[in-house]
């Protein structure tokens, strides 16, 4: 990042410097664990479907959701304490969400590539047990795009719920269903619900790609709008001693 960008986007610099290394470290861990599990399952139960696909459609989104929460819980207070405004924070938080979800999508896509290499060595086919916007494990541009979109929605939901709780416990509880609505298209995008009350019926609802993209864009804009409504005059309460 050039110093000029760093000066214009100080909040972004701070948040990215905290979250990007964290994502990278967890990605290494995730990749190693997923490939070890694939190897063990393959040795004991025969050729498995893509283990990376099973894991990647579930675990990374919770990480990005958590980072969305952290963006507010940790960094909003820090920004305000250093004289930055709520408007600046939200603008740079949106950019942050786009960048970290894109970064995480690149890493997830690399996981598919790494798994393909392992399966090729073992002479296993890399098959998917469920499909979303992508139908094969080697459609890398679509895989990248699908994860970017899904992870972006989960990050936005984290920011939204984080802001709710930054306002008050009551507002926080009210934003949970809103966050759930925001992430709904991600289920169709990756073809896996992974949520306790929303079964895979939604994943197989048969929406066109255009409809999914349109709904995702609409819900992302809605999430940003709601986030602005919550943050624009939010008081920074004193910390508990």
């Amino acid at each position, binding site marked *: 990042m050039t110093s000029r960008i760093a000066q214009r986007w100080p909040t972004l610099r701070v948040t990215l410097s*905290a979250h990007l290394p964290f994502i990278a470290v967890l990605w290494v861990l995730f990749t190693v664990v997923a490939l070890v599990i694939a190897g063990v399952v393959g040795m004991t139960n025969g050729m498995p479907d893509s283990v990376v696909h099973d894991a990647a459609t579930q675990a990374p989104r919770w990480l990005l959701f958590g980072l969305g929460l952290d963006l507010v819980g940790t960094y909003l207070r*820090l920004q305000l*304490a*250093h*004289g930055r*405004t709520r408007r600046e924070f939200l603008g740079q938080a949106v950019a942050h969400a786009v960048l970290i979800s894109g970064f995480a999508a690149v890493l997830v896509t690399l996981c598919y590539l790494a798994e393909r290499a392992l399966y090729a060595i073992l002479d296993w086919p890399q098959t998917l047990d469920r499909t979303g916007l992508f139908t094969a494990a080697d459609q890398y541009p679509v895989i990248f795009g699908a994860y970017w979109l899904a992870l972006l929605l989960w990050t936005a939901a984290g920011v939204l719920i984080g802001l709710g709780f930054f306002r008050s416990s009551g507002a926080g509880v009210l934003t949970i269903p809103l966050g759930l609505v925001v992430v709904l298209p991600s289920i169709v995008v990756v073809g896996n619900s992974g949520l306790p009350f929303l079964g895979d019926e939604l994943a197989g609802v048969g929406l066109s790609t255009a409809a999914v993209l349109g709904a995702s864009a609409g819900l992302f804009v809605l999430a940003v709008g709601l986030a602005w409504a919550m943050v624009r*005059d939010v*008081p*920074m309460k004193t*910390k508990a001693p």
Partner: protein
Amino acid sequence: MSTFIEADRLSLRYDNTVTALDEVSFTLTGGKIYGLLGRNGSGKTSLLSVLAGYRKASGGTVTVGGRPVFENAEVTGQVCLVRGTGDAAVSNVKVKELLDFAGHLRPSWDADYARELAELFELSLDKTAGALSHGRQSALGIVVGLASRTPVTMFDESYLGLDAPARYKFYDALLAEAMAHPRTMILSTHLIEEVSALFEEVLILDEGRLVLHDDAESLRAAGSAVTGDAEQVDRFVDGMRVLGEKRLGRTKSAMVYGELDADRRAQAHAAGLDLGPLALQDLFVHLTEPARAEQGEPR
């Protein structure tokens, strides 16, 4: 940037039920050290939070350099408020990173001075803020406030948890900083006697209202401490407004409100009594004692 601070009928209500600030108006010309005093719940933190843009006022206006504060980056970037141990002390982040973040976020940040202060207060840069003792967390807040080098810097009970030597280090550093880099500093504190020598002006809040705003010298001259033989002191202060008394054996000290003319001073001298300046703390207690408010006595 001008640090002329003006509050006009400033009000703050919580949940539309609790009034934290009730039409507070004042003007601070800037470039001085101001003392903000008040009992617990008097509205000190609320007032400072509005001045820093941490909260939006419910009514009235507050401007710094003639410009409104809330959500105005040009102003909030010039203002730093450290409440207690400081809002910038994120518990799971290392001290070193927190100071780096401050450097990214504050154009006026002085990183060398921050390191110097961190050494002075013996802060471990590699520890997370949450792993620091309460006193060290307060010291971190002080480092953030002083090294921000913002034209308006405010400390709200930032001494909490600091032991006496560390508190004196803070006062010394603050005074040195105010002389080397003159700026508007507002200190909210309960340790009035310990800090009062630093104050150039004093504001006293009580139940959300500003009950006094004056320069510290005038306040100290507004009354006297009369010390001497107990009987002589009692005779001398008879009929005067006594703010407080202390007694040790036959020696007594009484704080009286109101100027003493030359005749009275001569009488005190003749009676062997010492006359000293009024202690701000006694004046503060007098102005904020509940009985005065209940009696409706003017302040």
